[in-house]
């Protein structure tokens, strides 16, 4: 998503509009990732499994492969992408926890 590079408006201290913007972008990322989650597992792995099984790659019928292998790989990636993008979002809005993490007990 190219829009993360656009300059974020820096409101004066005390203005709460950054909160709405932060939350809106968090929700948008979430909805995007959850759509992919639904697509690989429920659409490709279950709803369309029969037509996809006509395609065979490396011995695997494709629908079968999504249901038993592919979807799991995608799940791992989705969580990684979420964590990395939220890191960036937190930094951009100055709500990251750098100080706390450096506080080594």
């Amino acid at each position, binding site marked *: 998503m190219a829009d993360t590079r656009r300059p974020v408006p820096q409101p004066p*201290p005390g203005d709460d509009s950054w909160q709405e913007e932060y939350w809106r972008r968090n929700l948008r990322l979430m909805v995007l990732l959850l759509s992919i989650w639904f697509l690989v597992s429920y659409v490709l792995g279950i709803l369309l*499994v029969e037509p996809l099984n006509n395609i065979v790659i490396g*011995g695997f019928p494709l629908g*079968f492969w999504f249901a038993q292998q592919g979807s799991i790989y995608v*799940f791992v990636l989705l*969580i990684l992408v979420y964590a990395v993008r939220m890191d960036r979002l937190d930094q951009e*809005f100055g709500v990251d*926890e750098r100080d706390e993490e450096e506080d080594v007990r």
Partner: protein
Amino acid sequence: MTPIQFWTFLFILLSFGLYIYIAWRSRVRETSGFYVAGQGIPTVANGAAVAADWMSAASFISMAGLVAFLGYDGAIYLMGWTGGYVLLALLLAPYLRKWGKFTVPEYVGDRYSELVRTMAAGAAIFVSFTYVVGQMRGGGIVFSRFLGLPIPGGVAVAMAIIFTYAVLGGMKGITWTQVAQYSVLIVAYLIPGFAIAQRLTGFPVPQVTFGTLLNELNALSVQFGLPNYTEPFTARPQIDVFLVTLSLMIGTAGLPHVIIRFYTTRTVRGARYSAFWALLFIALLYTTAPAIGVFSKYNLLEGVDGQPIDQLPQWIGNWEATGLVTIAEGIDVIDSVSNNPADGADLTVDNDILVLATPEIAGLPAPIVGLVAAGGLAAAMSTAAGLLLVISSSVSHDVYFRRFKTGASEREQLRVGRIAMGAGVLVAGFFGVNPPGFVAQIVAFAFGLAASSFFPIIVLGIFWKRCNAQGAAAGLLTGLTFTTVYMIGTLYLGWPHVLGISPEGIGAIGALLNFLVTIAVSKMTPPPPAHLREMIESIRYPAARRAVPAAVATGRSDRT
């Protein structure tokens, strides 16, 4: 003593010595260390602990066997028990970590009301009990096979061991023990997987190569009177596959012993990465499991194909003693194979033994057989310990000291918590001997109940400020009652499966009802007070906003 028994004893002794040593080293005296490990666990370690906590006897012992007999339909477990982490990571973990309490009922109590808290504690205890029963059963099967005991004796041994170190260590001990247990169980799972892949397909990565056997396996399955392996919807109709997968996913995200794990990270960011590490560690096993299922079923069918009854492979005799493998009377050659005694097939193999027997079926050397047994025990024990902790914290922290005796000393709280754990072990042991289903089935019920009770009200509590206590109480009660009634009705009272929906799949409908009722009742009753709306606002941001955004600053530490 046979070589298999020798190696099994050796690995079990070594691994349990290690766990108990770790638990002893990190034993605790304060309640916060007992319940959430003082929030000082590094992210990767926490991920490994989540993985061990999460991957139970059902994942390790039962799942590949179930997949082997379900074929494509086994995907309900593979996707259902991994996809929930996406929901957990995106919808729950960071926000609950920011809230920062000990237990799930505690969050619900703060967000809604004491009534909802008590109901949630009741549901947490119930769900964890159902789940811990599966672990007792799994541990019991391992001890029974390798100590030569009947199943009740095996369960008794499992009970004694779980009790010893869950009570001793609390969360901190459990977390570090679970890191060790994860290492043992994943090594024990991957080594035979890679060895068999090498032997059968000539390339040691099971995830890549099991496809090459699918055609032959399809043919063999049909020959032995089993459904075509890759054919979808042979065991369950499509709608049920969809709903069971959804129930397991939502249930995963709602399981109290998994959620509580994300309280033990130091930061919100740590909670997000913990979820990533956890699923990565889990995926190692979950992508290997379908391969093991294919390999062992292929070996099994190939091994008995056309053999006279007195020349069957050695493993069949080894496992007949447990009563989990049976051969029909008066036959000469095995013509049919099933996992269900009711089918009256020539050879009946219980799902639950397939992983444990895989190295024997494939003819791998005795040390690997022993290692797999130690891995199965690690999986059962680590999950049982985490569950007992939830039972103990719910009983002592959320019910006893809230409802009956407020202001008790730390010592007393710990003592009641430990007594609750002991009682939990005993009751779970009883049901472990007299189980109401297969290990993975029992566990699936726990998920249905978790899905229909916790997940909707926790998610709405974070994402919808208008959601109030009346709505949550009504929603939780509706979801839980509906799901329980359908499960009991279809399992024990002979009700038909409405639209083909099995008791394992009903949790998704229960969750949907919970959502709808919570929203409707919240709309009809007054909004929650202003201070609650501020609290919800505050959990949405990991930290207070700094004057200078960190994007400008440099040298950010990126360790995870």
